[in-house]
């Protein structure tokens, strides 16, 4: 009989923190580029596309890791609504990490634009050129990015709540620190 682990697997922790940095950078890059007409607009787009594809690749690895390693349980005394909110927000985070890059890729394809990750690296179109579909995908990409940002903020606040107020080991399960 195995005791429940106290920590996430080292690979899971590495992926979590790496992707946390990438996703927060990505959200700021996206918000900044659509709000600028300066040269920033252009170089931010050139970061946004390859970073988005890197996140898409990493989230697939991460889902495999998630389902093939054991997760530390939430504290037994955590109120039910908080436990449910934790589970639900994790589902939302994984879903958006997967969906947002696919929406970005699909919307560029629907606009009939070549999907360029650099001046010469090109991905195939995910869907055929279709202007009304582009408009739907582009709007979904924007709104869901805001939803991701809000979910990340909630996740951050909850992690700090566990670490500073409840002091129940949940934050440490991801930082890997013993105390």
């Amino acid at each position, binding site marked *: 009989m195995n005791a429940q682990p106290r920590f996430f697997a080292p690979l899971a922790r590495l992926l979590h923190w790496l992707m946390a940095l990438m996703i927060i950078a990505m*959200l700021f890059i996206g918000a900044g580029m659509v*709000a600028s*007409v300066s040269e920033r*607009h252009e170089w931010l787009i050139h970061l946004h596309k390859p970073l988005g594809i890197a996140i898409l690749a990493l989230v697939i690895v991460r889902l495999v890791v998630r389902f093939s390693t054991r997760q530390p349980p939430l504290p037994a005394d955590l109120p039910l609504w908080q436990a449910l909110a934790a589970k639900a927000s994790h589902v939302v985070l994984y879903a958006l990490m997967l969906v947002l890059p696919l929406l970005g890729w699909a919307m560029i394809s629907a606009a009939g634009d070549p999907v360029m990750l650099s001046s010469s690296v090109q991905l195939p179109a995910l869907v055929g050129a279709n202007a009304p579909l582009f408009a739907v995908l582009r709007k979904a990409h924007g709104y869901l990015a805001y939803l991701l940002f809000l979910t990340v903020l909630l996740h951050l606040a909850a992690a*700090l709540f566990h670490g500073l107020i409840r*002091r*129940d*080991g949940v934050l440490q399960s991801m930082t890997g620190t013993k105390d």
Partner: protein
Amino acid sequence: MVDHSSPPRPPLSTASLIIRLASIGVVVAVVAGAFAYVNGSLDPQRLRPKTLVNALETNNGLHPGYRRNHAKGVCVAGYFESSPEARQYSSAQVFSEARTPIIGRFALPSGNPYAPDSSVPIRSFALQFSLANGQQWRTGMNSMPVFPVGTPEAFFEMLKAGAPDPATGKPNPAGMPAFFAAHPETAPFLAWVKTAKPSASYATETYNGINAFYLVNASGQRQAVRWGVVPQSQDAAGAAAPAGSDFLEKDLAQRLVAGPLRWQLNLTLANPGDPVDDASKTWTGEHKVLNAGTLVLESSQPQMDGDCRDINFDPLVLPSGIEASNDPLLAARSAAYASSYLRRTSEVSQLHSAPQESKP
């Protein structure tokens, strides 16, 4: 279920609890505030893509489904036949393949899709080259040799100077002269306007890319260029724009029935010292000009359902072998076109219900 017992947690004092909760609040507020700063919410003065597109809508009226600028136009299709001259300067496949298919669009430079063809002396020509390797080259060219201004900020000021006065519905007649007086960089453009007349045909115009770009060859050498296309068709002597407001599209279709229309694609190489980041300045003196090949247009289509309708002629869609310069107008055009493109692609279904004829 085994509860991993954490070390005993002494309860927090009220003061400590408040400080810790407040710290969490501060962290969240700082991240949210930084985001609001970056997306422009805290910075209403920032020139954003939507600021430019809103200004175009204010000046031209809202015409759902149409481009917010250069709204009246016609689609064309054909191919580009390359010549060897550009190959040593650019590795772009468009210059090495014998033929590259093109979709293009001729247009008037106004956001009003019902503007009379004779209302402005400027015509524009946008192109999309579809390279065999899947890359694309898009460019939007105009019949003037320079842009009135060199920065998006000045362009926005120009749009505001031409905005209708809410009281009269017409632009203040003193607005544009005051703008030009305050912007001496507009002098080369104004000098050109003095000599320009509305042409009777899209087919007989020269179109200039205006912004500078870099050609990059296989060994990585960069050469700044401006490009343009020069027509092989000539106006009949004394030809003038006919009366009526919609002659350009008919003229084009008639000429294409008689045979393909051709332009030579010229790449003007920058001399040392030529401004490559300011589209309001001319390149004066002798320049080496490469003949990169010939554009051959074979057919036209009304834009309403034509192949060019759903193309965003973003000047920064470039193939490997052509790179953008630091001209600030390029990034601004790319950003504003994206905003216009999202608005009009959201309105495609309204295109056919819109009035087809001129409105006051």
